[in-house]
C-alpha cells in the first residue's frame, strides 16, 4: 500500500472528515493517522473545529429589524398588487 506523506494526508483531510473518502484511499488515510502523531492532532482538532461551529445556533433577529422587514414586504405587496412574482 502506498504510504501517504503528511502533505497528501492534509489534502484529503476535509473529505475524510466529511466521510467523502472510501475504499483504499480511506485505508491509506487511517494508516497514516495511526502512524503520524502530528496529523492525528491536526485531524482531531479540525474535526472539533467543524463540530463546534455546527453546534452554534443563530441568534434571533431583533424584533425591530424583523418588523422593519415585514413592513417593507407589505409595502412591496401594496406596490405590486396581487400580481407580484408572476413575471
Amino acid at each position, binding site marked *: 500500500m502506498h504510504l501517504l506523506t503528511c502533505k497528501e494526508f492534509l489534502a484529503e483531510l476535509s473529505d475524510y472528515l466529511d466521510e467523502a473518502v472510501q475504499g483504499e484511499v480511506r485505508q491509506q488515510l487511517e494508516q497514516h493517522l495511526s502512524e503520524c502523531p502530528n496529523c492525528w492532532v491536526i485531524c482531531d482538532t479540525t474535526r472539533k473545529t467543524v463540530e463546534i461551529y455546527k453546534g452554534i445556533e443563530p441568534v434571533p433577529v431583533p424584533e425591530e429589524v424583523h418588523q422593519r422587514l415585514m413592513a417593507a414586504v407589505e409595502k412591496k405587496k401594496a406596490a405590486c398588487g396581487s400580481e407580484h412574482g408572476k*413575471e
Partner: protein
Amino acid sequence: MIETSSGRGVFDEAAVVARAQAGDVRAFSELVIRYERNILRLAQHITQNREDAEDVLQDTFLKAYEHLGQFQGNSKFYTWLVRIAVNESLMKLRRRKADKTVSIDAPVETGEEPMAREIAVWEDNPEQRYSREELRAILDRAVESLALPYRTVFALRDIDELSTEETAEALGLSIPAVKSRLLRARLQLRDKLTRFFRRKGDDAFAYM
C-alpha cells in the same frame, strides 16, 4: 419574541412556498421567520458589518418576494435565498470598499499548500472554558479573520450546513473550488482556535 412554530422536520416547505407564490403574505412571513436568523448571520459573516448585514437581510427577502414566481423548486428554497443573500452581500462589500474586484471567485493564493501551523492537543471540552457569549465572540472573530472566499464557503458548508453541491450552486463555484476553499478555511480556523482551546500545560509555550 419570534419563534418558529414547528421543527424543521414537519415544515412542509413546498406547500408554504406555493402559498406565498399565490400571494399569501402570511405564508411568506413564515419563510422569513424560518430563515431570517440564518440569512442575517450569513450576511454578517460576509460583510463583517452589522448595518450592512441588516440591509442585506431586508434586500434579500424583498428580492425573494419580488421574484418568487421565478423560484422553480429545483433547488431548496433556502439555497435560492442564500444565492440572493450572497449577491447582495458582495454588492455591499464592493460599495463599501469601492472595490470592483470583490469576488468569491478570487483566485486563492496559488503556490501555498494548505497547512497547519499550530499543533497542540485540545482540551476535552474546550468550549466549557468560556461563557456562551465569549465562545460566540471567539468563533465569530475567527471566521471574520478569514479572507472572503474562505469565510463565505465555510459559512455555507460548516455553519449553515449546506452540502458541497448546494454551496457550489449558491456561489457559482465548481465542486473542487468549494472543497479546496473549505479545506483551507477549516485549517486556518483550527490554527486560530488552537490558541484558545489547547490543553493547558501541554507545552512550555502554552498560550495561557
